[in-house]
């Protein structure tokens, strides 16, 4: 079961992060959160911070999947779990990048 988890964990983390950032956007727009921090709008800062956190977590997870003590014993599971690990990282970077460029509540 641990081996199955190793394969599933990175995309699962992506799904959680993706939903969380979407939820954060809903919260910001639903409650009209505004204001500025350091010249940037507060919603933008919050969203970009969440984006950064998501990427950081994915990268940490990927590193764990490469770590000799945490990686699977089976060569096959190691291979697949690292691909899905990379997939999670790329997906987080790709699908959440609109936080940096699009307008948030229009």
């Amino acid at each position, binding site marked *: 079961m641990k081996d199955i988890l190793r394969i599933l964990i990175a995309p699962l983390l992506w799904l959680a992060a993706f939903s969380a950032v979407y939820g954060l956007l809903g919260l910001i727009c639903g409650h009209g959160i505004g204001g500025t921090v350091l010249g940037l709008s507060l919603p933008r800062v919050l969203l970009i911070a969440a984006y950064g956190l998501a990427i950081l977590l994915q990268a940490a997870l990927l590193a764990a999947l490469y770590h000799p003590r945490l990686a699977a014993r089976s060569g096959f599971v190691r291979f697949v779990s690292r691909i899905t690990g990379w997939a999670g990282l790329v997906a987080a970077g*790709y699908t959440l990048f*609109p936080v940096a*460029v*699009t*307008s948030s509540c*229009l």
Partner: protein
Amino acid sequence: MLAGGALIFALVMVLLLLSFTRRAPAGGEARQLRVWVIGLGLVFPLAVLGALLAYGLVIGERLLAREEPEVIRVSAEARRWTWRFTYEDAPGRRTEGVLHIPAGRPVDVAITTADVIHSFWVPRLAGKLDAIPGHVNTLRIEADRPGTYRGLSAEFSGAGYGGFTFLVSAHDAAGWAAFVEDTER
């Protein structure tokens, strides 16, 4: 987009056909994986899709209903099976089935519904936007020249859905002024 799609489809078909004529596999399994999975499976779509996404987002941003001084505001309320339009510039004026707008100026349509979900769609002026109970959605439309444009409700709404259409009448400056003043009288 259609042409690009056709090109990719053609590529896949050619590769499929060639598999019947080509005999010697190109190199070992590792090399084949590099070509098929990494090259064609990962890199190629990522490049195409990334470009397409960026293009879509730029267009999408441009279509948003941003604050502008010149904007005309109207409201559209759907009910089964008619649209009622009201006008900020002409308070008290209400039209049914025909939306009047000035040509050459951006118009924000505030869309909502009195009963079920409908969708406001004037194919030649903009994309569609839903009318959802309890919510008001704003769609930016703009008619380049005066004329009559066909509008449709594009969300299934029961028995009368098939005939649920409306018209948008775009006026020139004089016509619009006449329409607005008509109310004051």
